[in-house]
């Protein structure tokens, strides 16, 4: 927190946030949204219980640069099937896709979980209890790389 403005580009970056599927766990997502806003990003917060297509619709409408999906209740894998493909179909081939939370049912090996979500087309996956400072730092990195690349 309090890092707003460090990266002069943040104000030009729009991020869509929300909790996917039938998942009501809004707390972490709301804290993340607040932190992203404080850090200077433009944030479009869709809230809990958001179907996959609503993320994409919002991303198109707001010409978003990234989508930040939360999933806590264990059914994230089902809810995210085909998510990247849907983005591509909607013309969002380059959009940054992050996901975070309790991404699977129960306690599983994180490296495996991460790989599974990369296969689903996410650029990055984050375990539960990830702190917002760390998310902001990684976003800066990834967007900086894009500007250079």
């Amino acid at each position, binding site marked *: 927190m309090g890092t707003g403005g460090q990266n002069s580009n943040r104000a030009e970056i729009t991020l869509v946030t929300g*909790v996917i599927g039938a998942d*009501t766990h809004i*707390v972490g997502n709301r804290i993340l949204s607040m932190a992203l806003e404080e850090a200077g990003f433009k944030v479009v917060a869709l809230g809990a219980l958001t179907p996959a297509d609503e993320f994409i619709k919002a991303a198109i409408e707001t010409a978003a640069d990234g989508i930040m999906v939360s999933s806590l209740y264990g059914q994230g894998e089902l809810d995210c099937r085909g998510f990247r493909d849907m983005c591509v179909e909607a013309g969002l081939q380059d959009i940054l896709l992050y996901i975070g939370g309790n991404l699977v049912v129960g306690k599983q090996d994180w490296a495996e979980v991460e790989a599974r979500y990369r296969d689903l087309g996410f650029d990055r996956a984050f375990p539960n209890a990830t702190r917002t400072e760390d998310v902001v730092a990684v976003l800066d990195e990834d967007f900086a790389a894009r500007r250079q690349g």
Partner: protein
Amino acid sequence: MASDSNHIPLSAAQIPADDFARMRSENLARWPTGAEVDLIEAVAFQKSLPVHKQLGWVMRRAAEEGRCLTQPRGGFGTLKLQLELMQALDRDGMADIVPTTTDSYTRNEQWTQAQTGIEESEREGRSMLNGYPMVNYGPIKTRQLIEAIDKPAIVLSGTAMPRLTVEIGFAAGYSGYLGSGIAYTTSYTKDTSIAEGIRNYQYLDRLAALYLEHGVDLHRRQPGFLTGTNVPPCIAIAVGVLDALLAAGQGVRNYGLELAQTLHLIQDAAAIRVCGELAHEYLAAAGYEDMFLPVTSLHWMGAWPQDDAQCQALVAYGGTLAAVGGAVSVTTKSTHEAYGIPTPQANAEGLRTTRMAVYMARHIRLDDLPEFQTEADLLRRETRAIIDRVLEMGDGDAAIGTVKALEAGALDIPWSPNRHVQSRVMPARDVDGYLRIYDPGNLVFADDVAEVHTERLKKRAEEEGVAYDHNLAVSSVYEISEPLDRLLPFPWGE
């Protein structure tokens, strides 16, 4: 869904008998197993259970004898797995109350998907659902679960749409049912209107009351955890009392109130005491003199740490807080909480750790401590301010008042996903570890009451050397889940 009752105007009044009969037959027709429900036969089955398997009776006895019963949560996707789980919780865990948590499809009334889930689970030999699909199995098969245990059983189903599940549950022999219109609608839904959630639970409560009219004393219970995240006791109690008024309006007389632990020994004890007191007071004032209103304490409902050892302390303290507060029962968690649904073994261990903690603290009461009394007085004033305002907004009708008050923020729930809730209130932990309110949103408290909150939180900001801003609330969400080297480091090293 609840289309049937949408044309009845919302009120706290009892659903008329003929309307209710019509609503029931429409409801039961929604899935084949509904046809297995026969109220008279179900009443006979409930009465055939020994009293120690009837939660209504067991809760009353526990309250009389000053006991604190233990209850876990737990549900798996097939009858077989659920049966093994319930036996493990009954025997290895020594649970006094055995739960059946339903799966998410069932909660969302997506029984077709639940059916697929059952079939997949049976093929895979492991649970592909996050709970027991009670509607799909129906009451007759589900009775095997009741017969497999020697304790009373309760249905746990976090949803605003409980109508068919409760029909099946009561007919199957469950003598307890958790859920309520205000608590679940504000914490489990986004678009559902508060009115619709209330109506659905009025149906449920009316059904429980129908059993009572036939001589079956079922235990209804309000899920006091709401959003589970630093809900200040005044809000939890206010919602509990309002939900209880709505249940009483339908004829329910055995109604439990839950309270999530704040993890402050004195605040939690005061909350349990004040909750019981005010519930009786408001229910009596509304003309319900004969309510049984036991309080259940809930293990920490916010984010848990990743370290088993830290979790063990949370589990054990959960038993201590419940016993010291004089709760009639305690609902337990396990060391697996931060990761996922616990194994039966971890669940049973959480129960036994809690039980031992209850045993050791069973004689302790703090009611005569001046700090307890100050806190209880504060809490009474906060809670009365909220409830009185809600009832005023409804001209004495709890249902109408609640809808209006939530819309206006005069009743507010922190971290709610529901659009019809302001969710502007921001709780935070204060300098002494009490849960206070940093930003009341549109909640209105007396000036001196509000001042206590501000002053104690400013004191915390000062002691920690941080700004007095909303990050006090955010860090309070993280707090208990933090690793020990952040919570309590050895402070003098290099």
